[in-house]
Each structure stands twice: as C-alpha cells, then as structure tokens.
C-alpha cells in the first residue's frame, strides 16, 4: 500500500455493472480495456511491457507489486502495454539496488492508470466465474453512471485485430549479420526476449511489420521463419493467416509462439475460439507428448485452438498438452518442420523449462540447411 493519506480515490467498474472502490496509483486519469488476471509472483515489469497484453486491464493476483522497482533491462518492449493495473498493494518504495526507479513513477511516465486496495482475490473469482469482460478504471472521474456510459462504448476483444497496431512500423535486424542462420520474424507484438533467444543461439534475425508480404520476407533470404505472439483475436487476422500459408509453401522451418501458434493452426484449417477467461501466469503445467517430460510454462492467451477441429486435421500432430485442462499447447505439421506452442518458451517472466524449443528450431534450420 502506498501512503494512504495522500492518495486519491479511484473506481473500477466492470461491464456487468459491478463497482469496486479503491485508491489511485500511477497516472491520474481514466482507462478502459478487457479485464484479465495474472497469477505470476515475479516479473511484473516484463508482463506490463509484453505487447500481448495490449488492450488489457490487468489484475495482479500476487498481493505486493512494485517491491523491487523497475529496471531498464527487464522489459519485453519499449513501452508499457497494459491499459490499466489493478492490485491489492501497489508499492511506491522498492529495495532492488540495481533498479532504475519506482513502479509508481514508471506508471506515471507511461500514463498508466492503476487502482489498489482492491479485493483482488474476490475480483479474480468474479472474472473466473463470469468470464473476461471490459472494464473502466478512473481516478479523476468518480461518477459511476458516467463511467458506465464510457465503458459501454468500448469494443469487445472478440473479433478485434490488434497485431498490426502493436507491430513494428519499420523492419529491423538483430544479431550478427554474418551469422550462419537467418530467420525472418513476423512481428504481431513480439516480446524482446523471443528475439534474444534466437540471437543467443547464433541467429541473425530480421523483424518485419505485421503486413509485410512474403515476397519481401524472401528478400532477406531466410533459413527459417518465426511467427510471433501478439494481442487480439487471431480470427480477425486473415492477412496474417495468408502470410503463414505462404511461408508453409516455402518448406522452410517455421516456429510460432502463442498468437503465432493460433495463426499456424488457422493456416491449416483449424479454428480458434475465445476462452472464458484465458491462461495468464507463470505456473501452467504442460506435458511434452513426444518426450514424456513435463515443463512449467509461462502463458498469456485469451484465445485458443479448437481441440475437435485439431482432431479432424489429420496432418496436425499434437505435441504438447496442458495438464490442468487438457487444452492443446503445441502442434506440429506432419511432413514439415513447422511447429508451434501456445505458451511462451522464452518466458520472461517465468521458468526457463521450455527454452529447449528454440534449440530445436535452430537444430531444424541447421539440418535443413545441410
């Protein structure tokens, strides 16, 4: 809790009409977005800057957020991507010696409205039972009726195309230009550490804007393609599905993460759906059906690929499943070196159990090159 005396009041209103009173934190203002929750106990800054959270108002289940401040290197993109933050105790003061500043200042600089002193546990249960919905937070306007009016005007996440909104405007490269391996990356909201994971493994990568044509990608002369994560509804991105289809015809290794996984599925005739309240956290158990080994994964998705539809697609092999709800976490296209996972093997934040997938991707590329 920040100092209670100097704090303004703030209000949170959900689309179903429920109202929660709290105290303001960060930027003073009004914000809207789809409410979701994250159960992770470390890595708030990485989460806040993850482009996949674009358009989301985030509840942090962990009761203290801000304890170790913010640090320039703990980011997944250059700006804060969440639209608003809801917490039990948001902390102004921090102790990390290598940090660059406090969370409160960081949110103010990034103009992010936050609310604290909320019964986040009750709120998470509410979302778990009633599903994801839009919400509005305000620390400047405390008139509930007015807030409800503003909230009504916010579009639903279902059918919303956001990949091109958060994607890079200009293509850029990372890694050593003389590297043996070249990867073309489709950016629909890529996390910085995904790029790092490929570069660390000796790849030279070029990151392209969402609507880049296949012809342009090919000019880079890539040995493999990567389809990134990102926010929004995959079904609203036919342009991206077309790109993936085109890449598949190239017969080069392809790796997709999260939204990239959904796009690979769509490109193979599998349908996607909006989940009730999504998976967001650092503790999701996944089993690798090929090795029999399990991995604790970082997840952040509100859409999934339809299991019945996967079953029908004979050319798709399920490689990973979620041990909690049996949802499909990884697929491979038979006869091709194309694969994808629903979760985030780069993690950041989260366990590094699944980073072997980048090794596999690089290994595929090396094999194909020979």
């Amino acid at each position, binding site marked *: 809790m920040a100092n*209670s005396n100097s704090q303004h009041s703030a209000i949170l209103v959900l689309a179903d009409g429920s109202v929660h009173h709290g105290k303001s934190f960060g930027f003073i203002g009004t914000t809207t977005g789809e409410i979701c929750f994250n159960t992770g106990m470390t890595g708030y800054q990485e989460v806040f800057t993850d482009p996949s959270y674009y358009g989301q108002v985030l509840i942090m*289940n962990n009761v203290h957020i801000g304890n170790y401040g913010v640090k320039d290197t703990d980011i997944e993109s250059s700006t804060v991507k969440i639209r608003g933050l809801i917490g*039990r105790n948001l902390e102004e003061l921090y102790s990390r*010696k290598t940090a660059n500043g406090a969370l409160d200042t960081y949110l103010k600089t990034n103009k992010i409205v936050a609310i604290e002193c909320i019964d986040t*546990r009750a709120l998470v249960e509410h979302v778990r039972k009633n599903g994801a919905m839009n919400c509005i937070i305000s620390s400047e306007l405390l008139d509930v009726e007015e807030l409800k009016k503003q909230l009504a005007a916010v579009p639903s996440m279902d059918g919303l195309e956001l990949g091109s909104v958060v994607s890079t405007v200009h293509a850029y490269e990372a890694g050593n230009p003389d590297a043996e391996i070249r990867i073309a990356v489709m950016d629909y909201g890529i996390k910085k550490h995904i790029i790092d994971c490929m570069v660390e493994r000796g790849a030279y990568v070029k990151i392209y804007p969402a609507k880049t044509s296949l012809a342009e990608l090919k000019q880079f002369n890539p040995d493999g393609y990567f389809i990134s994560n990102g926010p929004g509804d995959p079904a609203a991105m036919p342009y991206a599905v077309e790109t993936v289809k085109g890449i598949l015809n190239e017969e080069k290794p392809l790796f997709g993460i999260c939204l990239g996984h959904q796009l690979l599925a769509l490109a193979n005739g599998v349908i996607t759906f909006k989940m009730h309240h999504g998976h967001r956290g650092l*503790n999701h158990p996944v089993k690798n059906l090929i090795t029999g080994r399990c991995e*604790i994964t970082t997840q952040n998705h509100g859409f999934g690929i339809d299991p019945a539809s996967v079953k029908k697609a004979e050319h798709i092999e399920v490689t990973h499943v979620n041990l909690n709800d049996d949802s499909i976490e990884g697929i491979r296209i038979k006869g091709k070196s194309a694969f994808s996972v629903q979760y985030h093997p780069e993690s950041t934040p989260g*366990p590094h159990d699944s980073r072997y997938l980048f090794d596999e991707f690089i290994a595929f590329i090396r094999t194909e090159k020979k």
Partner: protein
Amino acid sequence: MPRDQSIKSVLIIGSGPIIIGQACEFDYAGTQAARSLREEGIKVYLINSNPATIMTDPMMADKVYLLPLTAESIEQILEENQIDAVLPTMGGQTALNLAKEAEDLGIWEKYNVRLIGVDIKAIDKAEDREKFRQWMIQMGVPVATAKTANSYLEGKEFAQEIGFPLVIRPSFTLGGTGGGFVHGKEDLDEALNRGLQASPIHEVLVEKAVLGWKEFELELLRDSNDNVVIICAVENFDPMGVHTGDSITVAPAMTLSDTAYQLMRNTAIRMMRDLGNFAGGCNVQFALNPDTEEIIAIEINPRVSRSSALASKATGYPIAKIAAKLAIGYFLDELKNQITKTTSAYFEPALDYVIVKIPRWNFDKFKGADDTLGLQMKSVGEVMAIGRSFTEAVQKACQSLENNAVGLGYYGKSLMHAEELLEYIKIPKWDRIFRIKDALMAGISVGTISKATNGIDRWFLYEIQKICTMEKELSKYKLESLPMDLLQDAKRMGFSDEQICRIMNDGTEDSLYEKRKAAGIKRVFKMVDTCAAEFEAKTPYFYSTFESSGVSESKVSDRKKIIVLGSGPNRIGQGIEFDYCCVHGLLAIKEAGYEAIMVNCNPETVSTDFDIADKLYFEPVYWEHLWEIVEHEKPEGVIVQLGGQTALKLAERLHNKGIKIIGTSFDSMDIAEDRGRFSDMLKELNIPYPNYGTAHSVDEAIEVANRVLYPVLVRPSYVLGGQRMRIVINDEDVEKAVVSLLKHLPGNKILIDHFLDRCQEAEIDAIFDGDTFHVMGVMEHIEPAGIHSGDSNAVLPAFNLTPLIVTTMEHYAEKIARALNIKGLINIQFAIKDGKVYVIEANPRASRTTPFIAKAYQIPYLNIATKIMIGGHKLTDFKYEKKLKGFAIKEPVFSFNKFPGVNKELGPEMKSTGEAIRFIKDLRDPYFRQLYKDRSMYLSK
C-alpha cells in the same frame, strides 16, 4: 510411470524425540507419508521412539514400533516382517543417518530391502560438506570459498588462508549444531574445537562468511522422470548469518526480480537433477548478493524438512504426501493437485497472500545461554501467519507468538534510546524485529537500520515503517474520535483491537470491536487454494483478513459445530503432545456427528493439515481472531482441554461471552488453576497438600515461607512448565527469588509451597464422565521430587509404590474429579512422603503424558475423552483392555548441546524439549536399573 507394483510394504523411519532443530514437522511429514502410502494399498510399518507423535498411532500404520532409533531395532523389525522398501526421507537427519548406518552394516542388503526416495550416494553428496562443495564446483555452481579440515591445525591453516569473517560448519550435524561465526583470530580456537567435536566424523568446513547477502530457500519436488517443480520460494527476513530455523521467513519471496528468481530456480533444478537417484521433496538454500544479484549455493537437503512443512502450510500443497507417492514410482503428472482435485500435481503454486513465519525461543529456560542468533538453531517452535499484506501477516505472527505481544511493537514498556537501539539491533536476537520497529519509531532511517543489521532488505523495513506511520496517526485519536476509514486501514495492516487501544491509550478491546463491527469493519475469511483463485477449490483451509468487498469464502454450514483450540507455537512444556490430542479430538468430534473446526497457528502440526478437521482456520490462538471465528461459525461450543495452557486460558472470556466450554466448565477449571480455591477444596475433601501461601511482596513472601516451613518452592501463578520456579531454603534466597520474579513478571501473584524434600512423585491421568471415574494410568517418577515432572523419567504403571498408596492416590483423584465436576480429562500430581500422599496440583485438561499412556496401553483415550466431553457417551460405552506387558518408561530428552556453557542441572523448571518411550519387561532391565541407580544424580541444589 505408474506406481511400482513390486513395493507392497514400506518401513517409514521417524525422527525420534523432539530436539531443537528437529521437531514435530517430521511427525507431520511421516503422518502424511503413511496415509499417502496406505491409500495405495501399501502395508506401512513405522518406527519412532517418540510416543507423543500422531504417526505412531495405531490408526496411522499397519504396525507401529515404538523402539529406539537404532540399527538393532531396524534389524528386529526386518526379522519380524516381510518389508520390501524403506523410506528414510521423512524423519529428518535422524532417519537419513540411521538409513546410512544400516546400509554400512549391510542390513538392507541382508533383508533385501530397497531404499526408496533417495539412495546413499545422493545422501552423501548432499550431507558431506566437502563432497557438496566439490560437486557444486564441478557443475559450475558458485559456492563460498571454503576448505575442509579434519584437524585443528588444518583448520587454523585454512582460516588464515581464507580470512575473517568466516564460518565453521561441522559435517553431518543437525540444525547447525556446533557451527558458528568467527569474526577474528581470538574466537577461532574455540569455534574450531567445538565444530570438530560436534561432527561425528571429526570434520569441519572452514568457509568464507558471506555476511550481508540475502538468504532464500526453495522447496522442490522431483520425480524419477526428472520432472521438477518449485513448490515455494521462501525469503529470509534476516540476512545470511542467522540459521533459517531461527530466521523470520516470508513467502512468496518479496524482493526478488524474475531474473534473480529464475537464476535460482534454474540452479536448483540443475542441482536436483544431478543429485543422483532421488524422488521426493528437497530443499535448496541460496545466498544472493544484493549489489550484483549473483548467487551462491549454500546447501541442499535431499529430504522433507522444517521448511517443507512450512511450505506445505504456506501454499496448501502437501509436499510429504506427494513425495511419498513419488518414492513409489509415480510421476508428478500422474497425480492430482490435492486441493483443487481437478488440476495436476505437476505445477507450481501461486499465492495471493503473504505468509510470515516467526520462530519461538525459550531462552528463559536456559539461564546463561548465549541468546545471539547464529548458525546453530536455537528456537524451539514457530508460528506462521497469513495475511493479504506483509504488514498484516507480520503483525498476526506477533499476535500468535504467545509472549504477550499484541502486534509488532512494545506497548507500555520503557523504550531504549535511539543510540541504544541502533547498537542493540546490530546483533541478531529473538526480539530484533520488535527493536527495529522501535528504532523506526524513534526516527532512525531505513538505510541506517539496513546497514546496522548487516543487510535486512529495505523493502521489509519500508513495510515496518508503514506500521509506524499508522501507529503515529492512530495515536492522535481516542475511541470516540477515531475515523472509521483510518481504522479500516489499520486493521488491514494487522493492528489488533487491543494494540490500537494501547496506542490511543483509550478504549478496550471489546469496545473497539463493537464499534468497528457496527461500522462493518469485520474480518473476512479467504481460502488457501494453491492457485491464487485461478481454479475453483473446495478445501476448507482459511485465514482471515480485512477487505472492503466483504467477500468471505468460508461458508457456514447448517451442521452442529465444535471448535478445537490448538496450543500455538511449540515451546518447552507445551509441544507436540497437544497436537496429538487435537488430532484425536477432531476425529472424535467428526465421529460424534459434529463438524470439527480447528484453530491454530503452528505450521509444524498435523492438526493443521487441510484434511484432518472439517474446517481449518490458520489463525493466531488469540482472542480477537478466535472471537470473530466464533461469531462467524456460531459453534455449539469450544474445546479448550486439548490445546494445553494456551487454549485453557481463553476459556474465561469465552465463558463470559456465553460460549459453551465443551466438557469441564470454566468455573471448575478456575478452581483447579487458582491455588487458593483449589487448596480450600482439598481441605474440604480432607486431602492432604503441602502447606502454602501467596504473596505479592518480599516481606509477605518471607512471612509465608517461615509459616509453611523451609524448604519452600517459590513460583509465579499461571505459568507453563514450571517457568521461573525455584526451591529455596532461607529468607535471603526467598528475597532473591521474589525480586527476580517481580522484575520479570510484575504484578504477578507469587505462590509459596512447603517443599517436601526427598519425597517420591507420581501422577495420575484420568477421565470422568460425571458418574464413572476411570484411571488411565498411574505413573511413578524415578527421580525424587524437585525435578519438574516433564523432566523426570516416569514409569507406567507405578513400580515401587505400595498398593495402599496407589489406591489412596486413585481415591483422591476420584474425589477431586467429582468435586470439580470434571467432564473429560484430568491430570493430578502427587507427592508421597513417609507413607503419606499429598496432592500437588491438578490440571483439568489433556496433559503431556496423555499420549504416552494411550500409546503404552494401546487405548484410544483421547477419542474416548473427547466423546465424553461432547456428551452423548459414557465411559461404560467403551472397552479398556490395557495391553502393556511389563512397564513403559517415559524418558525426557534435552537439547543442551545447543547451549554450550549452560548449566545442565535439572530443577523445578522444565528444560527437556522432547521425550521417548521405552518398554521394559521387568524391573531387572539393565536400562531401568541404571536409571534407578542414578536417580538422585540430577538434583539441583
């Protein structure tokens, strides 16, 4: 891989008597393991010499051996039974050492028994300091600079090489026994010698001290398919230098960035996978340099531990239960999360609350002990508190400690000056956190305190500062003027009503409670569910907090309910035996058709396991919390007889609020507790008792002493385990004793009894149902009077007393039980001198010896007693077939080795930390004969 079908029977090794560093957390682990294996249809055999444990109850295993933990006992068990495998990872260091000894002797091989969970190589790698170091270096995991020395000279040489400050760590010892810091040359000799002597293999590690680094622990599970999960990351409030058992600890880790945490997680997983054959629970400790965030590995324990018991209670994840299943071959992904029942056991719990553990020390029992905290554990128990913020959790933990703390802070006591405080907190002692708060109140800065304490993380200090700021704000008001929104904020920070009244210097706990209740500021109860509400859970494990939403998850059923009060943190005089009593009480309540509700704050206990009671409130056994639970649940009544003195002393307020005390009434209890009323009653019943008197001053005391005649026993009223009790022989000593008592317990009434010198002591535990009186057991102490009953060797049944004396004792006991109108349990202590029987005291509750008698006679006495308390059952409804052949001896076990330099003499103040049971066929038994011969050796002056 599913369960290994070739394992049909398993031997579980317990940890033996409670000693400092190895307490009832291993009863919790062993009990869970036994239940978990039996669930799989495996026959469970159990060995433990500790009769106060639940694990040694007949209902827990197919066959229980209450035998000394020796290779001979193991051989006897294997001789008598067909056993396929032994599980040594549940009984602490004792069990691992015994498993290793049996391995060295070739016993496992001889009887074709497999070691499951861990193999000897893995034990060696983890436990042998030098092997551990070499192993870490091989894996590229950083460790502190160190060298292993096997002699004094070697040690000295290495110390010079490494430089001060350094640490001496003996190999193969428990709870850091014999270890210590050496700040300079002058302390080296003593520390080296102590360390070498403490190590069974005469080996110490001379290690560079990483003072000022932060300390973390990870609790992990690994299966035989190399799947690893981290169940909990625990952060020590106290930086490196204080044994983790003596540190205040917090979960989840509060000050770790994801980068730092993942480095630790990755390292721990690498260590576990490289350990060798291991399937089960494991603990890894790290130190982190706050300036650079580099880490070093401190140690790995390839077994469940105190920390895993804490982690289980902190997260809801039953580590020992799952560890047992992994030991018989299961993979983690084949098991279900026991809390949600629908999701996988292969996952990492997410917390949406904070837990704080504070150790409980008993330095008052060890006069002259060095109370500086260091590498060697000194605490005897611990409390855990759950809150929705660190401030709330830490204050709840203080309220749980039972040392009269009403929250984090001293109230009404004289405070030290700022300079004094700053000096004081430089050295870690039991009350350091209280003094840190005082220092912050006195205006000393967070930075200065962090430096003075060698690196307590500033974040924790900022949080404590919030408590101070709030306290200063509260002090501006009186009960009438106190703004409700400020009160709401204060309650969210864990301030108790009593604490707020003391800060305002106005109002009473009750009046403030009524005021806030009227304003709607009431506790809500939240669930511990392993998953931060992500999935639905039905486990009835709750804690209280304050939320403006008012959403409470603890739904009150329409069944009739009974609340059982636990005994709070373990300490000398009140320990594991009450956990045993509570567990049986809860089970009996369920059998009697009521909903059983448990309230306690001790994370080591079985009674706070999530599936023992119908509903568990993990809360301080403190009036305010208890009362809101009572108001929420509206039980038929509350049982206070099973939770020792802690529970008993809450009876009066419950009674005054009109809440039914199940069993013996409050008034009867009060007669037994109040020396004056009790003696009047004995007089009326024509039962002899030693002459006595009460005093409030030295003069009065001397007058009484001369009236009742010397020698006299001087003691405060209402204390536990004979605290501060002294035997004195002249006026001068009376004065000394009384002055000291009044200094430590100001305002306390002092009791002075004539001491029956060289008399014989005996005790009776009994049950009375209003009509029938049943003597559970008569125990005769081997040592003559003057030694606290908890420290005496007691023999069941009496071995030397004449039948006439025993009959007289039983007769008196029945008269007392009838006069007190006992409903349930009673324990009566006797002194016998010159053929005359005197009654010394009566305890209208379960006693330390109740579990011992139940075990020795194999009669479920606690179950019977609870059903008598509830009513609906009479003693005649049960059968009593006492199965003891020969005698059972209750032997006290001490932890003096943790306090070098402390006088080991015994006296009227209890000092033992645990007990063992030993069965003998007859009085010719050599062990008994030795004890009997030495019976007067321990007498103090």
